[in-house]
């Protein structure tokens, strides 16, 4: 069964067609990249999939179940967890406390038999993310890269069957990007499908197996990274059309 099937998904904000019948599938164990110019509708797509925005038409099928009409927390309990473009840390809490929040969701509670097991799982995830030493620190004292990792770590506590990362590389240094790429690849090697929105194409292309290109709400291309970088439509969307007459003459 495909983890995620999106079929002619549309969303309109007043006069703006934010998503215009976008369709694609996420296959088991796949890393999918979603790219597109600013304002193309990538984050809207995530918001529609994760239940934060109602969509107008089309369907989103998550492991055979439609997400339509479900609340965001119900979709998390179905096994889809997302992170946000801007980090959303729980300021005013300690790292451990912040990590406990998602472990109180129904899905995580079902997986754990005891509080001790829950705690051990949280510590294990933090260790894998390289945050093991920060466990008792206050979230306020972490840097941008660590906050990003904490966001992803929080998402993992809910035992996702598919993970949506919204611009996980933005605002990070090269080394931090390497770190997050490594984490994503690691998760994927355990069989978790990951969908990534990203602007840093060089780093993204190394990571993903399939790329979906969105522009003005429409899907304009889909394929492996090698094919996408040569696609005429994609180049047009990013760089504009080549003019035959050049204004100097």
């Amino acid at each position, binding site marked *: 069964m495909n983890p995620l099937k999106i079929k002619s998904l549309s969303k309109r904000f007043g006069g703006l067609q934010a998503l215009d019948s976008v369709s694609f599938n996420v296959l088991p164990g796949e890393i999918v990249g979603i790219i597109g110019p600013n304002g193309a509708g990538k984050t809207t797509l995530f918001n529609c999939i994760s239940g934060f925005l109602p969509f107008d038409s089309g369907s989103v099928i998550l492991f055979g179940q439609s997400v339509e009409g479900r609340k965001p927390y119900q979709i*998390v*309990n179905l096994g889809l*967890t997302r992170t946000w473009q801007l980090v*959303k840390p*729980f300021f005013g*809490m300690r790292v451990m406390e912040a990590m*406990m929040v998602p472990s*109180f969701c129904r899905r995580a509670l079902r997986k754990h038999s005891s*509080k001790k097991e829950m705690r051990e799982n949280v510590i294990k995830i933090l260790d894998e993310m390289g945050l093991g030493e920060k466990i008792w620190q206050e979230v306020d004292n972490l840097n941008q890269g660590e906050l990003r990792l904490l966001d992803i770590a929080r*998402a993992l506590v809910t035992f996702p069957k598919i993970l949506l990362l919204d611009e996980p590389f933005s605002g990070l240094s090269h080394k931090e990007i390497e770190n997050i790429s490594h984490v994503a690849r690691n998760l994927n090697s355990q069989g978790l499908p990951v969908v990534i929105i990203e602007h840093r194409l060089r780093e993204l292309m190394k990571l993903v197996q399939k790329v979906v290109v969105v522009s003005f709400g429409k899907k304009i291309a889909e394929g492996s990274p090698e094919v996408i970088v040569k696609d005429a439509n994609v180049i047009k969307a990013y760089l504009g059309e080549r003019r035959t007459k050049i204004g100097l003459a």
Partner: protein
Amino acid sequence: MNLPKKSRFSLKNQSPFGLAIFVAMAVFSLLSDNIFYIEVLKVAAIYAIFAMSWDILTGYTHEVNFGFAFFIGGAGYLSGILNSIFSFSPYVAIPLAALAAGVSGIFIGYLTLRLKGPYFSMATLAFASILFKLSFIFYEITGGEEGISGLDVFADDPTKDFFVAWGVMLAVYLILTFYAQSKHGIILKAIRADEDATQSAGINTAYYKIEAFAISGFMAGIGGGVFAHSQMHIGPTMLSGYISIIVVLLAMIGGMGTIVGPLFGAIALTILNEYLRVVEEYRIVIYTGILILLIYLAPEGILNLKFVKKSRILTFILLGERKPV
């Protein structure tokens, strides 16, 4: 670090400072035979109930409830009516009134769920003013401006009367600290930091907000009922904006989001207010002056001051948090 242990109650996570306040109040009232002092402590205890129950909603979610008089006065009136017209005993009337306040907390919580910031405050303010006006419209039941007098007291002896308020305060304090340290408190703090992120952690945030509203209303209702019966009178002041604002001030100066803070703030400031009666002409000026000074020096409240949070020993003594090394 107090990770929630499922429904296990322990004194280990209690703030020594908070417990010391209780002990000090009890010892003082047993030793002193000055009725005036005991009366003051009783009022302080009741204000502490208000401030603490306000704190569980606003301190933990940062949505400022400016209509707390709705719960306090509403429950006070209801238990007064049950007592004076239907001659219920206060021990029955107060829980019933508090239950009604809790249920209306669910109702208001549901209606104001999507409101944030000033809009939330204004909506809660409106609910309180509606009740304030209603108390004048239905003057046959509520006594209009006079209020309802001659309610049954708990005991004739002021010391016993004080201990009823003290016991209720202790119970409210223990329940609220327990609630705040449980998973519910952690989730409320997460909602305060970021509601969307809490939802994407798979938490039904609406449920937890309404639950906090209901508990806050219920506890305030108990406080309002105890106030009405210990004063033998309930009047429209308890429904007015005055009481709402006093509660906000007491809790904010003590330190929001700590439960101990509002307890300390309410008791210290009520005692200070009464102590200033020695210079009655200037009392209001000095009292407000001190409030302004405190807000200026400790905008986040006395127990949330930076040096308290930084010091391991002070955090433990005042807030009961054991910082891991």
